[in-house]
């Protein structure tokens, strides 16, 4: 069923504008979907920020930058990524180590690296791209489906950056980067036996994590997630308020800029991580389903584009990126609606914030590149 859907999307784009877009290495379908999403996101942000036009302008600048980066990256042949992968990985790991040694941060976490005091950047953002790139590079020269030794190496490649990021500490990003790396393994044909084994291992390791590794605030998040009412004014406040916002939206919503939960500032972080609650309150279930459908179209199209990649490296890399994108969507909406713990993941391309937009658009650049460089 999903396959038919993807093919239909494909037929449309292939007919139109073949020559110019072909030269620009841009997939019109994906570009249109992204533009719709981003434009819609600006409207949501305008309401969620309390009609803060300045914030909307800044978000537009981030989008502009993001699309520019996407266009640039789309021009690069996937072979270049393959060649650069190990080097970028080494640079990325070095940067993560530097963060732990000389990084700057806030709220008890060190995540930023200051470059000559001129600007700051988050190496963990880059690793969101570089980790799957590295794993894809490694697997592309190995026999697939991967064998035990290969799997072991891949786990090492994935958990090294994940561990360093976890140390910052940033559990959410560490898990997402681990997921991105492991997704490559899944696309490479990891056998179901291994998947089952992994699940069993996670269940066994969980108690060890809880008692030995996790920080108090991380435990608190999990506890609050399991029972938000236990601390309604502390960490449970966010979840209770966001669920109230979503639920009170009903089928049709309270109308744009009419959400009492969000407009009256009951909702915390309403223009960043919890923006979906604003949207759900104001646009109701209908609006939510439209947004979910839009995300699904983007992901399905992305999977199709990845599967059309020229070689194994390109397919694995692009496939992992697009599914990671979906995981962001799922984790964010899941946490805001109260089925996942609060881990601090923005809603892709809707939440306010330049870093996440740039990283995501770079990923779409890669996917464009993989899809558009297939026949040369």
């Amino acid at each position, binding site marked *: 069923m999903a396959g038919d859907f993807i093919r239909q999307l494909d037929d449309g784009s292939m007919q139109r504008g073949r020559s110019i877009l072909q030269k620009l290495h841009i997939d019109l379908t994906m570009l249109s979907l992204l533009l719709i999403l981003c434009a819609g996101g600006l409207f949501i942000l305008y309401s969620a920020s309390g009609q803060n036009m300045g914030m909307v302008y800044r978000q537009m600048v981030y989008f502009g930058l993001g699309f520019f980066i996407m266009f640039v990256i789309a021009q690069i042949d996937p072979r270049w990524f393959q060649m650069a992968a190990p080097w970028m990985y080494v640079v990325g790991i070095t940067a993560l180590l530097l963060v732990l040694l000389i990084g700057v941060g806030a709220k008890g976490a060190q995540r930023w690296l200051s470059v000559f005091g001129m600007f700051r950047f988050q190496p963990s953002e880059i690793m969101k791209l570089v980790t799957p790139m590295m794993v894809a590079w490694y697997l592309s020269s190995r026999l*697939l489906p991967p064998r035990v030794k290969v799997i072991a190496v891949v786990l090492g490649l994935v958990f090294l950056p994940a561990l360093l990021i976890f140390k910052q500490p940033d559990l959410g990003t560490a898990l997402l980067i681990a997921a991105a790396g492991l997704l490559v393994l*899944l696309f490479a*044909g990891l056998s179901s036996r291994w998947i089952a084994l992994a699940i069993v291992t996670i269940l066994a390791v969980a108690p060890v994590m809880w008692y030995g590794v996790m920080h108090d605030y991380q435990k608190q998040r999990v506890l609050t997630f399991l029972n938000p009412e236990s601390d309604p004014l502390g960490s449970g406040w966010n979840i209770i308020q966001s669920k109230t916002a979503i*639920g009170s939206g009903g089928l049709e919503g309270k109308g744009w800029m009419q959400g009492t939960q969000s407009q*009256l500032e009951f909702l915390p972080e309403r223009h960043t991580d919890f923006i979906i609650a604003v949207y759900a309150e104001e646009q109701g279930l209908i609006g939510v389903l439209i947004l979910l459908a839009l995300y699904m179209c983007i992901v399905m199209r992305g999977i199709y584009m990845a599967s059309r990649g020229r070689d194994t490296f390109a397919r694995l890399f692009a496939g992992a990126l697009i599914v990671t994108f979906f995981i962001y969507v*799922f984790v964010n909406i899941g946490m805001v609606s109260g089925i996942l713990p609060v881990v601090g993941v923005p809603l892709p391309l809707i939440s306010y914030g330049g870093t996440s937009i740039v990283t995501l658009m770079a990923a779409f650049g890669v996917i464009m590149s993989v899809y558009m460089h297939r026949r040369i």
Partner: protein
Amino acid sequence: MSFDQKDARVEKEIFAKRAYLAALFVFVLVCVLAGRMVFLQITQYELYASKSENNRVQLKTVEPIRGLIFDRNGVLLAENLPSHSLTLVPERVKDMSRTLKLINTLVGLSAEEQENFEKKLKSYRRPYEAIPLKYRLEEEEIAKLMVNNYFLPGVQVEAELVRHYPMGEDFAHVLGYVGQMNETEKKRLDPIQYKATRRIGKIGIERYYEKELHGQVGYQKVETNAQGRILKVLEKQSSIPGKNLILNLDARLQRTAMEEFAGRRGSLVAMDPETGGVLAMVSSPSFDPNLFVNGISYKDYNALRDSLDTPLFDRATRGQYPPGSTMKPFIGLAFLEYGVTNWQEEIKDPGWYMLENDERVYRDWKRTGHGEHIDLRHAIIESCDTYFYEMSFRTGIDNLHPFLSQFGFGKNTGLDIGNALPALLPDREWKKAYRGRSWYAGDTLNLGLGQGYMLATPLQLATATNVYAAKGKWHRAKLVQLIDGVPLEEEDRPDDVVIKNPENWDKMNHAMEGVIQHYLGTAKALKHGLTYRLAAKTGTAQVVGIKQNEEYDSEALLERQRDHALFVSFAPVEAPKIAVATVVENGESAGKTAGPISRKVIDRYLNDDEPKGIAYEF
């Protein structure tokens, strides 16, 4: 599969398979999210819609304005002044230590303010309830806080009406004060009516008339944002202010008494024999009740608590003193009532008295005695103890006790005076129960002099004198005259004191006038310049059992071992308008200490030429 070489076709097939799986996986998870949203937005819509409405609409209670208190001439004694205080809602403060630091640099916080705040922060409170940090902000401080509002989330400047007592220490004990409600008080009070109230009456009239003064809570249904800022008032029910009280007390008399005490330890209670209205009720030394309204500082409180003069102690209603010879007019009436003597009988006073079969010598205060011809009148004028030993012995405890009890000794008779002590009028049962011994004749002799076990508060002495001045007509002591214009009803009035021969009232009055007018009178110094007929009786009470404390310096210790001076009086004799009881601790000579204080107060009250209340600003 056992390929040893990479096969691009196989790898592409693997990927395609996995891509299908991924698409399926994505589809399933989207359905999970959609399902969750359907659950929240359709199934549980009602629940969350009402939750959201409750979030938005808050019932904000409005504190009623506390009733005002005036003296009998309309002088304002307790008012409500606008005051700005700085409060914090901890749930909304992002970084508490930084916020406190910033506030400290802006307006300055004393260590105590911070300490109080920390304490309140830790104790139980309603979520999102604001905690006061600093009271009585100056205009400049408010401006500084407003300008930095942006950096101080959760910090508010609240305007409220704060109780103020313009007369300060003059009325501290009798009026009392309001203070912050504590947990036990919160549980005791109506949770709805007191929802918006921060302070309640702690002692005195403020406490006794709490219900009348408080008023009724109002509310506003308001739409607020999460910061608690009110955006819109949806519905409103105004609060009803508390009732205003007009007291029987006279601010001029309070002031006069305070001036006359001049910091000496003691108490004065003045009453109106026609009504029982309390005209003055002073306990000296006093304190500034305004200190307590916003929570007194430790330093101030410790100073008050640890002062040897115990300024916080209300001597008027809780100070228990042996009444001494001030009891003689009452006891003298008892002698006549039970026929043990008459106005004519004379006794010899050698300066001492002895009982048969008792070796103890009961001494007169005057070692040489009062002479050969002491009748009842002279026994009152000169305060002859020997006469009273003899007649008390004749009367006996079983007659003395019920007779004195009629005047309210050993009882609480005040109508609206909370917390007063009943003191002690001993009898046989009491001694058996509390001393484990039977009543001896010597105990009767001591009682006949207002000594021994007997104790009375200044309020009781004033009440008894008041009943006496009204020739037995009873009125319970009442502080309040009108509640919102409605006179206070006098319930459970004790039976009037009826004596067999009413002429004895006038004859005893004549004797009491002699205390002032006779050349042997114990308060003859008071007669100069007297413009009305004053009847009085002096008394001294021995100070027993003062604890030796090494911190006391010897001079202070000596001073504190002197006798207490007591004085009861009323005037004008022909139609009494004021009855006064005065105690000066360690005052020794009543005629020189307690007497003049009483005289000044009576002068002030009866010489009504100056306009009332003009000395004070309204």
